[in-house]
């Protein structure tokens, strides 16, 4: 009698958890891709942990706080590693609706991933899309800050160059007009021969006149 009941229970469980059953989800793990050499083997203990995580997720849903590990059923474990799971209600006759399981898993996805050292790509729940992390947007876009810095530097440099140019021109305009009062005019005009200007004698200060040979060079060396 007891054996019959046992077989009946396992048969019912087997019916509840089947590939493509109602409210069942397929899970796929890629341990070697994620962890390489440090990949652990997938055994019944890991399955127990998985059931515990799913039960934990369901317990955080209002009205489902009584979910136990034994309510989570796994089946069809392949070498991949992939398997199907369902979550049953306390009577173990019906499975919980897929929508509830979906939202529970989505809420706690990060905790589940971390328990297995995996991420959204290596621990996949098919038909449960994961919420993608939005890119961090700073309040002021960074490029504007750098643009502002470069812009200011260029403007300041331009202003400096323009102002120094204006000042230099003002000095040049004042210079010849001052000199005209004190010195003779003819020294300031540039002599032009055949359309080519001769280099004017530099008036600004003491300047060695190269036309005159220095004392040392007058005598040719032996």
């Amino acid at each position, binding site marked *: 009698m007891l054996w019959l009941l046992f077989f009946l229970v396992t048969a019912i469980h087997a019916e509840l958890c089947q590939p493509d059953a109602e409210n069942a989800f397929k899970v*796929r793990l890629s341990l070697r891709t994620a962890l390489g050499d440090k990949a652990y083997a997938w055994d019944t203990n890991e399955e127990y942990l998985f059931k515990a995580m799913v039960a934990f997720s369901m317990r955080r849903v209002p009205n489902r706080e009584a979910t136990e590990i034994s309510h989570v059923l796994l089946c069809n474990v392949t*070498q*991949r590693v992939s398997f199907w799971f369902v979550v049953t209600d306390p009577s173990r006759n019906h499975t919980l609706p897929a929508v509830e399981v979906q939202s529970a898993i989505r809420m706690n996805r990060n905790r589940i991933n971390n328990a297995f050292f995996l991420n959204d790509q290596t621990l996949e729940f098919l038909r449960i899309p994961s*919420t*993608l992390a939005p890119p961090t947007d700073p309040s002021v876009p*960074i490029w504007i800050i750098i643009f502002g810095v*470069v812009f200011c530097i260029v403007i300041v440099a331009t202003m400096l160059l*323009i102002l120094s*140019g204006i000042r230099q021109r003002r000095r040049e305009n004042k210079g010849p007009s001052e000199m005209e009062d004190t010195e003779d005019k003819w020294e300031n005009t540039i002599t032009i021969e055949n359309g080519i200007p001769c280099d004017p004698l530099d008036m600004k200060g003491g300047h060695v006149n190269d036309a005159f040979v220095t004392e040392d060079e007058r005598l040719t060396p032996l």
Partner: protein
Amino acid sequence: MDEARPLWATPLQFVFACISYAVGLGNVWRFPYLCQMYGGGSFLVPYIIMLAVEGMPLLYLELAVGQRMRQGSIGAWRTISPYLSGVGVASVVVSFFLSMYYNVINAWAFWYLFHSFQDPLPWSVCPLNGNRTGYDEECEKASSTQYFWYRKTLNISPSIQESGAVQWEPALCLILAWLLVYLCILRGTESTGKVVYFTALLPYCVLMIYLVRGLTLHGATNGLAYMFTPKMEQLANPKAWINAATQIFFSLGLGFGSLIAFASYNEPSNDCQKHTVIVSIINSSTSIFASVVTFSIYGFKATFNYESCLNKVILLLTNSFDLEDGFLTVSNLEEVKSYLASAYPSKYSEVFPQIKNCSLESELETAVQGTGLAFIVYTEAIKNMEVSQLWSVLYFFMLLMLGIGSMLGNTAAILTPLTDSKVISSYLPKEAISGLVCLVNCAIGLVFTMEAGNYWFDIFNDYAATLSLLLIVLVETVAVCYLYGLRRFESDLKAMTGHALNWYWKAMWGGVSPLLIISLFVFYLSDYIITGTLQYQAWDASQIPTVRKQL
């Protein structure tokens, strides 16, 4: 002449100015494409022949004319013959067209440069869609780098008829680019002479760094082998020769009047023959050097994409047949595929349509040129390198230097005739003339920052300068040889520099180069006539990738 003409402080500044003008974006993004299309290593044969026959003689001609006449393009041609002042005006107008649209590239380089200081790089990830369960649809269909270029940078409209509004972000970058150009040309040769040290040398530093990095990338040798294996049959293709001639012609920047302007600030005794040879050889070597870098990066990108493709196939098969994770590798993929096909035929035939045929050759064969190469393909390769921010900053800084260097030449071509003219320079000081030119160009350039701006850019890039320049240089050569007189020019040069003119230059100027230019001109003219309605590549969010639309 009332005051002495401003001169370059040293001949080195002149050489650097010419190098920085000639070595521009075309060396980086056009030459590698041509090399790939026309036979790899064997393209160097027509390229070097054209350099010797067409590039060097025409460059020498322009530099000699500028140095002899000591005026900008308008004044120089008017001196040669009063009927030829139209040639000078034509040069100035073409330079004006070029500077209008060329600085937009610098604006885009600034945009990418400023965005390179983020982690992760904004073009490496797609933005999320509305309910955060997946990525933006347009980005999924294209790639993240294409999305960033077409949507975030350009915000491109589906066709040229829909102009859209001026985008303020590229507009700001354009204003900054023009301010920077103004800063560099403000004081004439005094400021330009110092800036060209940077714009000429820095790109080489960056290229060296990239060469070392590129050659050490995984898969770089694939790209290099693909590029340099010569395909000798391409030598018989006339298009290869035509493109080599065109590339040399436009790469040296002949006909714009910039070279005449730069040479006019030289000492009359400057040995421009030596400088011609130096500048043209450096320009061509830079093209080849840049294409080595480009192809090692291509190889890296192609290998990376090929391996991702293989990994996707492996994942697909592993998931469909529930094989053990890690069982399928690249080496046993083929045998396992045949085993699965025989063991589970029905299931295999279901999965088969989704299995892509991954091929390294097809990845390498995607030849891209122009802005697509710089802003889409290169950024895709950079985002997969380690410390991608550093490489990105270096790369766009180099693009900026190359672009600014060329802009300096273009603006010099416009400004030198203006400042030479007594009428204008008596009213306005040099700074005001430069400022006015920059302001006008910037205002018109805002057209290229509209949503349809990239289409206008493509049109200008393809058609603004081609035929005009060929005609201008043809008239220049014929004018100097036959109107002014080759003998007279020869004696002028001898008096100026002290060297006699080599027979080679005389032969080229008199016969070969004009014939080459005439044949190029005829080819392009007939090409335009035969093509009929002109077309452009449009980016439509509903039909990705790009479609050809008619103007």
